[in-house]
């Protein structure tokens, strides 16, 4: 069991932090992500549980993380990488983990991240004829949008 953790440590260009016995963070910069994912899959992390984005608006970055899991070793490995917020571009991981295809479509629609190699990213996925900026970004003001588009009911009387 320990063998795997040593192997993860040897990953080049990766900063490893073991938060718990079965949760290991691997921080990699943008262009080494695909290589790391591939080597982790060879080690036995066959399942991509989640691929999503955290909007670090303070330091102007998108944090993209891939949660991998191995049924054999019962360990979660979270590969993290950072992309700047102005023109966020990442490489698709659906060649290694097919389920990443749908995650990337959601990320590109909700955060406006451009994913190279995933041809379905431009297509409408969840939102129907949405004109505004991607809604999940922190700089999108949801309250302002909803008060503009929807009329609130005044509590005191019928506003018909």
């Amino acid at each position, binding site marked *: 069991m320990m063998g795997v953790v040593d192997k993860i440590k040897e990953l080049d260009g990766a900063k490893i932090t073991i938060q718990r016995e079965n949760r290991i963070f691997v921080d990699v910069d943008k262009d080494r992500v695909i290589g790391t994912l591939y080597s982790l899959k060879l080690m036995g992390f066959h399942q991509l549980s989640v691929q999503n984005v955290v909007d670090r608006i303070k330091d102007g970055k998108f944090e993209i993380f891939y949660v991998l899991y191995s049924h054999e070793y019962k360990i979660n490995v979270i590969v993290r990488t950072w992309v700047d917020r102005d023109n966020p571009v990442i490489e698709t991981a659906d060649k290694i983990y097919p389920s990443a295809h749908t995650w990337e479509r959601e990320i590109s629609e909700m955060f406006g991240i451009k994913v190279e190699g995933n041809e379905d990213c431009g297509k409408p996925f969840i939102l*129907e004829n949405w004109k505004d900026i991607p*809604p999940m970004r922190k700089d999108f003001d*949801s309250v302002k949008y*909803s008060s503009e588009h*929807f*009329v609130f*009911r005044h509590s005191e009387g019928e506003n018909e």
Partner: protein
Amino acid sequence: MERMTEEQVKTIANMLRKRSLWMIHYCTGCGAMELPPTMTSRYDMERFGLAPYVTSRQADILLITGYLNVKTLRRVITVYEQMLDPKYVIGFGSCALNGGVYWDSYAVIKQLDRYIPADLYIAGCMPRPEAIISAFRHLMELIDSGKADGYKRYKRNLAYYKENQRKVLG
């Protein structure tokens, strides 16, 4: 004499519509979980002549059970327009009244009756089966007294409803 029989026909028709209400099995929000116990042995709404039906052509009541986001609104409007005429809409829970906990969401509409005419609202963040059954009984009284005329309102100011719908759906 002619007007009087017209009146009698209307009352008989309303009495019949009250006794046999068919509900379309279209669960739009989280309130749909309250319907199974209402339909089955525990609370048994069939005692009052209510029965779940599948297609919009056969149904009289459309239940908006919980929050209604923009995508579902488009489908709900199609279903509503496909239903045959004496039709009633019941809004479940606070989400149909004023958006409820999703008041700040970019996707959830805040007022049901701006888009389709709602005859009745049931308060509560998902009303319990007893509340649903009392709502049905209240709807029966409305039908009997002829006040449940949401479908007439929809026909009368169709432009108003269509305008609101177009503004939201785009």
